């Protein structure tokens, strides 16, 4: 094992180490509260205050200090403090809590340890002064216990609440409803039609509308002009097979992978930087992006994609076991497996030192895993059992131990930067057998360095400065031990660390360790195998196995819902990252299960699923609203029509490039970051770049501490945490951007220049305008538009004098600003 993980980092802190808690202080949860406890009628504001007091002060005390012995299962002294009714009832010694009367409440006597007849509680350790004051205030204020906090869960007890929640139930095989009207074309349609309850479906969309819709949905690009022309020349109603053929064509286009990988990149909070205070770039992140694009284009089964992202490094190790020689295909696999774990490697880094605030980086790994695959937010369980979902702190820290047994790569940061650090903790893209000679030479050099430091640290070098120098070299050695010779291609992935179990952090505070929690997959889902983590591994192998178990009720459901959302603008579950009890309920639960089964039966194929959905009739409805039904179902939850949607940021930019002919469809190489030897960013001078390209927007370099201005303005993804769905905002600054940013002027001008060569602007403009409309909107102008545009063009030519191209440019630019372009019917 040549990877030394965090050793070097910690070493440095040992040199200067000591506790900083004095300086940092405690958050003001520890301040005495300012409540005056006045006894007025209970206003809403006051209730909120009391609720807050309960949640922030009382619940943690009960959970951490009391529930171990008074939890409903174990009831010491007959007292159960885990729910409101039990607390009201009291224990063997009588009523423990007398609302409004702290002095005479047994619980207060017990924690204050005032009288000999009441056993002091908690038995081993007195509560702090603040905690006691909090309890007293709570009792005096009426011992408020919020309605939604019926049953508290002790850290040790298995959480049973929420088990009946719909998304935790096995996926069923629902009966496909009948459709007597003959409207339905596919099983999907039958499920939808069954939910209309008297609502009437909208008309089918016309062919050109449909072509535009499906082109953007499947590839993120405007429709192909050939398709548009064919559809225009075809007679109405003769659509038939041609749509299915076009869908296949789109599914097989490389643009499909670029579009659908981008959706997944939202979910896995993809970024090209690490997120530390200087936001160090990670050129290797691009390998992961490309891997995802290739995977979606190859229609890699989604379960395989999950396994690779969670545990690809283990698969790579298996593949190259015992120095086995790999053939070309296997070498590619080896590379892909390792690149896939960039999913974990990309967890957000914090602050200025390597792996500073590592517990938050691990939190990102856990949270993103939970949201991406299970549609659940584990973050809450870092500090306390999840309030609404049955996720316990033990579930969280079981996962924590798994990720803490994993070695993360270090991209550089202000302290140590990275010029001397040869991609420490990164993963080689080639197996050991391929790189043996180079590595041997590399290690020889390190040995030499080691020799040097041993000599240096002898008894003859008492000077502090020299000592520091030696320490620095030692650190460098450590990093080199964890790194690679120059020129080696590596992934920002993860590897196995030292398998071990971590103590849970009480209240989420790593300086306050509690009991040790063994590496384990979460325990709240039942009815299928919960694999036991192998002693010699981190547990990521088992985590992947558990996530992709076909009987896991969440993973496939959550993914199927994401796919549906991308095609309809809204998921069957409206909260794609929250399938928990606080998330939305599915509008069509049977359809969701039907599609989930279909997906699993079709080998977790994204393309099959997409095809099944877009070839349904409901996908092909027009988006027209008609008032009467809009009143009954304004949100169109029953899907009696299609949802009109604003183009997302990528589609806007890609469309302009595609239409102007400036889109470079090739895959770009690594972003043009400066050479690694020159990296010396600090928080005072962080890495901040925008690299303009003519490639698709999915290939734009995106950072963590600064958003790309265009993407930020048009609701691009959060690069710091999982984006389940994007908003479709509309703000004046977008208008300014569309109107004035040079990009929009340049692209519309490029289009104008070409059209100007081909068409006369002065004569009858019909042909010219038809061409513009087809390019920009994928259809012909109607009569009114033709007239308006013709008049405007004429006036503009008069104003622009000798420059008809300018007039043309102006018109095309306006079209790009128009709602007809920005919205897809």
């Amino acid at each position, binding site marked *: 094992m040549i990877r030394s*993980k*965090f050793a070097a980092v910690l070493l440095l*802190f040992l040199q200067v*180490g*000591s*506790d*900083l808690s004095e*300086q*940092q*202080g405690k*958050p003001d*949860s520890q*301040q005495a509260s*300012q409540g005056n406890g006045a006894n007025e009628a209970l206003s809403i504001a006051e209730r909120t205050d009391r*609720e807050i007091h309960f*949640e*922030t002060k009382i619940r943690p005390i009960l959970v951490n200090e009391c529930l171990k012995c008074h939890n409903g299962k174990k009831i010491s002294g007959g007292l159960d403090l885990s729910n409101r009714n039990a607390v009201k009832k009291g224990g063997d010694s009588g009523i423990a809590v007398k609302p409004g009367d702290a002095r005479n409440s047994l619980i207060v006597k017990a924690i204050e340890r005032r009288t000999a007849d009441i056993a002091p509680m908690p038995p081993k350790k007195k509560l702090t002064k603040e905690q006691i004051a909090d309890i007293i205030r709570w009792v005096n204020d009426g011992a408020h216990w919020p309605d939604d906090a019926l049953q508290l869960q002790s850290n040790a007890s298995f959480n049973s609440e929420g088990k009946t929640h719909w998304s935790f139930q096995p996926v069923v095989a629902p009966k496909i409803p009948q459709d007597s009207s003959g409207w339905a074309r596919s099983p999907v349609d039958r499920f939808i039609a069954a939910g209309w309850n008297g609502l009437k479906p909208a008309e089918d969309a016309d062919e050109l509308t449909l072509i535009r819709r499906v082109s953007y949905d499947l590839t993120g690009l405007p429709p192909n002009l050939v398709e548009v022309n064919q559809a225009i020349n075809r007679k109405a109603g003769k659509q038939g097979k041609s749509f299915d053929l076009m869908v296949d064509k789109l599914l097989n286009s490389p643009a499909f992978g670029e579009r659908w990988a981008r959706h997944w990149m939202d979910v896995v909070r993809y970024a090209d930087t690490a997120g530390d*205070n200087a936001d160090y770039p990670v050129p290797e992140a691009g390998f992961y992006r490309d891997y995802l694009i290739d995977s979606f284009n190859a229609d890699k089964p989604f379960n395989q994609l999950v396994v690779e992202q969670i545990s690809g490094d283990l698969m790579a190790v298996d593949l190259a076991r015992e120095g086995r020689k790999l053939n070309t295909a296997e070498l590619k696999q080896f590379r892909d497996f390792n690149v896939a774990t960039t999913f974990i490697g990309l967890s957000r880094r*914090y*602050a200025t030192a390597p792996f500073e*605030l*590592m*517990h*938050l980086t691990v939190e990102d790994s856990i949270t993103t895993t939970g949201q991406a695959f299970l549609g659940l937010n584990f973050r809450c369980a*870092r*500090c306390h059992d999840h309030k609404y979902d049955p996720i316990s702190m033990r579930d969280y820290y079981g996962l924590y131990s798994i990720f803490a047994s994993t070695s993360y790569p270090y991209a550089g940061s202000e302290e140590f930067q990275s010029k001397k650090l040869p991609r420490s903790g990164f993963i080689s893209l080639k197996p050991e057998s391929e790189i043996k000679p180079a590595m041997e030479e590399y290690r020889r050099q390190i040995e030499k360095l080691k020799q040097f430091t041993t000599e240096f640290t002898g008894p003859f070098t008492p000077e502090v400065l020299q000592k520091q120098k030696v320490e620095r070299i030692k650190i460098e050695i*450590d990093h080199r031990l964890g790194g690679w010779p120059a020129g080696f291609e590596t992934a920002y992935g993860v590897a196995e*660390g*030292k398998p071990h179990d*971590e103590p849970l952090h009480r209240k989420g*505070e*790593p300086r306050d360790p509690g009991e040790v929690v063994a590496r384990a997959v979460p325990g709240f889902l039942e009815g299928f195998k919960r694999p036991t983590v192998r002693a010699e591994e981190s547990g990521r192998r088992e985590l992947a196995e558990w996530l992709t178990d076909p009987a896991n009720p969440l993973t496939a459901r959550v993914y199927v819902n994401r796919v549906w959302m991308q095609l309809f603008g809204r998921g069957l579950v409206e909260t794609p*990252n929250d399938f928990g009890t*606080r*998330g939305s309920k599915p509008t069509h639960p049977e359809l969701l299960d039907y599609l989930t089964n279909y997906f699993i039966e079709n080998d977790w194929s994204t393309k099959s699923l997409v095809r099944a959905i877009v070839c349904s009739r409901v996908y092909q409805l027009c988006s027209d*609203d008609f*008032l009467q039904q809009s009143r009954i179902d304004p949100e169109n939850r029953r899907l009696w029509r299609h949802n009109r949607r604003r183009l997302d940021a990528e589609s806007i930019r890609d469309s302009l490039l595609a239409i102007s002919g400036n889109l470079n469809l090739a895959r770009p190489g690594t972003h043009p970051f400066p050479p690694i030897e020159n990296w010396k960013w600090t*928080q*005072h001078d962080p890495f*901040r770049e925008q690299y303009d390209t003519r490639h698709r927007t999915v290939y734009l370099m995106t950072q963590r*501490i*600064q958003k790309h*201005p265009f993407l*930020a303005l048009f609701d691009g993804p959060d690069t710091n945490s999982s984006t389940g769905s994007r908003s479709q*905002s509309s*703000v*004046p*600054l*977008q*208008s*300014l*951007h569309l109107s004035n940013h040079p990009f929009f002027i340049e692209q519309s001008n490029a289009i104008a220049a070409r059209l100007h060569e081909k068409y006369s602007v002065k004569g009858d403009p019909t042909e010219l305008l038809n061409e513009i409309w087809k390019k920009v909107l994928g259809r012909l102008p109607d009569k009114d*538009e033709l007239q308006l545009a013709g008049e405007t063009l004429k*006036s*503009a030519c008069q104003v622009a004098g000798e420059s008809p191209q300018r007039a043309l440019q*102006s*018109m095309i630019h*306006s079209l790009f600003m128009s*709602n007809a372009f920005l*919205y897809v019917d």
Partner: protein
Amino acid sequence: MKKQISFNRDVPISRRDLLAGSSAAGLWQLAAALGQAEVMIPESGVHHPPEANRFLMIFLTGGMSHIDTFDPKPELDRLHGKTYDGFNLRGISKLPLLRSPYKFTKHGQSGVSISELFMHMPKIVDDLCIIRSLRTDIVEHFQATLAMHTGSSTVPMPSIGSWLSFALGTANPNLPSYVVFCENLPYAGAQVFDSSFLPPEFQGVRIVPGPEPIANLNRQSKDNDPDSISIRQLEERFLDRLNQHHASRRPDDARLKGRINNNHVARGLQKEAPEALDLNQEKDRTLEEYGLQRGDKNSFAAQCIMARRLLERGVRCVEIIDTGASNNWDSHGNMADHRPKAARVDQAITALIRDMKARGLLNDTLVAICTEFGRTPWGDGPSSPGRNHLASAFTCILAGAGVKGGITYGETDDIGAHVVKDLVHVHDYHATILHLMGLDHKRLTYRYAGRDFRLTDVFGNVVQPILN
């Protein structure tokens, strides 16, 4: 081979160092436990009658030393040079205490002490509420700057200006509700004025003093000749008609109308912003007060006047960030470096407060002058005349609507290392600001990813004693 040290378990001391200061961040997700029912914005926009309708924040980047500006420590003169267990970014070292090189004098009717770094500020001392007992959680620029702006020191959250815009809306539809003068980006970059999960219309609009103060306000082309202006008019008319035609066939979709309206607002902004930022309309005497040469459009003083003009025109929140992430108040090397930083803002801030008072603007405007943390009473190194970062005590100021003027609040110990009386955590500072703007910080929430978030996380108490 060196002993392998795992990142978390085997070396508890180191780990503590690594994780020091993370406690607030750790409790961050307690927000999850909070069950406020919904986004609680009453229709009026406020929870209670506000003292202030506008908010001006002046952020002094890099960590202004409290003990050299607003928190005099005569005891340090006596202890100067004595060795002390000074804590710095990563631990404790024996370091000499350092007296302030600046003289403090009592000023105004209130007799509040300010150091000679500020020559002009004595004129407004009776309007200032100087809070000497601020504390923050993490002693790094990035995290502390983020905390002062968003309440969160780690995970990006909406900034205070975004929260206020979100809650209170705008009073002038032609101007953005939240404007940030930011010539150079501060630590944590644009995150400090980002709307995060709040809708993007509430993100701070950055103004970079100079030829193009707002990004894409104007076309970077020769479009400004008379012909082109006509073409622009044609363009606008064409776009409006096209959009109306489009919307007429989709009558139920409010978003389409919303976007048509936004195009109009954008045009309003194009017209109104240049006027709002135009200093030519200011009188000579005003410019003189601010210490501004006519024609200067870039200096801090110019930004202060522009800020006032925006506030007058109904912009809800204006922030001025005095300098960027480098060349700021971060005087590690020498406290003498504070002098040019103070000189740059002293006269302008003073003039701004006086100006706003004279115009009656200060009656309903709350002004917050703040920084991310303080500086250590001991030297940055064994013989350094500069000071290191200090999170445990620093000074910030409130002034204007609803705030007592001419007072100091809170106390630090003899050397200014710790707060000993009336602690005001950053969350408390924020809670107080929201309170003065008519908002209950506990009820101003936004549900995101299944949880209700607040500016003050699960903390914060309004600092009642400083309120009028």
